[in-house]
Structures are given as C-alpha cells and as structure tokens.
C-alpha cells in the first residue's frame, strides 16, 4: 500500500503543474531553513570559536571552504542520480531538475576554489598549486561549465537535457578522484581530518559545531536554489501551455 502511494506520487511529480506547485511551496521553507542554520553557523564561526593555535583567524575560512567543497561534490552526485532517472524514465521535470543543479554546483565549486586561494595565500604562501586535489576541483568546475554550455547549445531543450545527462554520468568519475586525491597522492592540500564513519576526527571538538551548521545550511540552500531554477525552466518551457496561461492569468 505504501509502495503504491510512493509510485503514484513519483509519477505525479512528472506532471508540470504539480511539480511547480510543490517547488513553489517547498522552496521558501528551504530558504528559511538555510537562513537559520547559516545565521547560527556564521555567528559561531566568527564570534564563538577561538582563533587557532597555528593559523590564528585565517582558519575561519574553513567554515566556508569545506561546506562549499562538500556541496560541490554532493550536488554533482544528486545531479547524477537525477540524470539516471531522466535517461531511464524520460521524465521531463527530472531532466529540468538535473540541469538546474549545474549552475549552483558551479557556484559552490567557485566558492571552494576562491576561498581556498584566499586561505592558501597567507598560510602556505601561494594562491595556487597544481596538486591533485586543486586540479581535480578545477576539473570539476570545467565539467559543470561544460554541462551548462552543452545544455545551452541545443535548441531542443529535451534533447539537450538528455545529452547533457550523458555528460553528467561520464564526469562522475571525477568525484572519487577528488575525494581520494589526498590519500592517493602527496599534495599541498591537507589530508582528511574529518571522519564521518571511521572514528575520531582530528578537528578539535570546539571547532566542529559551526562546520555542522554550515554544512546543513549549504545543503538546504542547494535544494532551495535547485527548486527555484527548475521552476523557472519549467515556466519558460511551458509558457504557451494552458496551466501557465491560467496561472499567470490569475496573477495579472
């Protein structure tokens, strides 16, 4: 019985007006959640946590750099899952969602690279190094831009989305490379200090809370922005259809 409801609702999401309504309702909550978590996280990051013994205040960049990096990768994985669904079931709203994730993922990758440079300059003396993790993050940025460019280059939006979904799936190889790059190669970038499953993290407990809040905040924001952009794409593609016309007829 539950399985049947799940299936029915899954396919209902394929209906543009239903999806639009859902996104319209859900997005403000996600933005609100982001605002709360970010406020708490930023306050703790800037005022509560004491300066680091070795890096003094520049380590506070961690609270922007790390959540953005994690979200850049997590966002790509979300897009890859959506891409599989889009290619297998050919659901238009899922194609739109997969494409909507790319600009946001690119934005987070950019934040990660920029804040990384700003952290690296005072601490390690260089804005950039061609080591494994930095290079593979840069590669991720180019893959995101490639997905956006490929999607934009097609006149037929549905075909463009599906071709770009193939590209998303090809590029997924990069994600494990980024993640394990600090283990496989000796790099300038530091190794993994935060362990989710395998025991003690080497980051001090007093420094953890803002990181947790910012990570949650960034995930909520990704979801909110994804729904916003997907809604707009759907509106744009369906502008001549009945449901859009009647919806906009109400508001004018």
């Amino acid at each position, binding site marked *: 019985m539950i399985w049947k409801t799940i299936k029915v609702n899954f396919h209902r999401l394929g209906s543009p007006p239903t999806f639009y309504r859902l996104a319209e309702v859900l997005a403000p909550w996600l933005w609100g959640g982001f605002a709360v978590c970010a406020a708490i996280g930023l306050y703790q990051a800037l005022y509560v946590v004491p300066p680091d013994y070795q890096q*003094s*205040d520049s380590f506070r960049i961690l609270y922007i750099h790390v959540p953005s990096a994690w979200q850049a990768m997590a966002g790509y994985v979300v897009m890859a899952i959506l891409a599989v669904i889009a290619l297998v079931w050919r659901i238009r709203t899922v194609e739109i969602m997969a494409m909507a994730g790319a600009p946001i993922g690119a934005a987070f990758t950019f934040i990660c690279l920029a804040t990384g440079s700003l*952290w690296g300059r005072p601490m390690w003396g260089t804005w950039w190094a061609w080591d494994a993790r930095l290079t593979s993050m840069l590669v991720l940025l180019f893959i995101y831009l490639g997905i956006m460019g490929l999607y934009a280059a097609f006149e037929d939006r549905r075909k463009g989305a599906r071709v770009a979904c193939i590209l998303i799936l090809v590029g997924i190889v990069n994600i494990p490379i980024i993640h394990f790059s600090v283990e496989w190669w000796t790099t300038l970038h530091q190794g993994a200090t935060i362990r989710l499953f395998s025991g003690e993290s080497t980051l001090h407990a007093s420094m953890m809370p803002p990181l947790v809040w910012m990570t949650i905040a960034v995930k909520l924001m990704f979801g909110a922005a994804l729904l916003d952009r997907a809604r707009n794409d759907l509106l744009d593609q369906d502008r001549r259809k009945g449901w859009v016309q009647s919806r906009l007829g109400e508001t004018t």
Partner: protein
Amino acid sequence: MIPDFEYAFYVWTSYGIFAVVIAWQFIQPRLRKRRIEAEVREERALQTGSYE
C-alpha cells in the same frame, strides 16, 4: 561589533564571496521569473490586442 581578526582581509573576502554568490543564487531566479511573466503578458496582449 566587528571582531578584529588577524588576516582580516582574507577572512572577510572569503565570507564576502560566499555572501555575494548565495545572494545571486537567491536573486537571479526571481529576476528571471519576473522577466518570463512580463514576456508572457506581452505575448498575450499582442494576441488579444488589449494593452492596459
């Protein structure tokens, strides 16, 4: 109010980049929605011949 950090430039620039990018991700869809709605209204006005 604003704490005095060592490496203040780098820290604040990082947080600033974060704020600007997130703000853009919030604003851009709203701007685009407004533009799409205006275009749809324009097209409908062209068809019905009624401009207000």
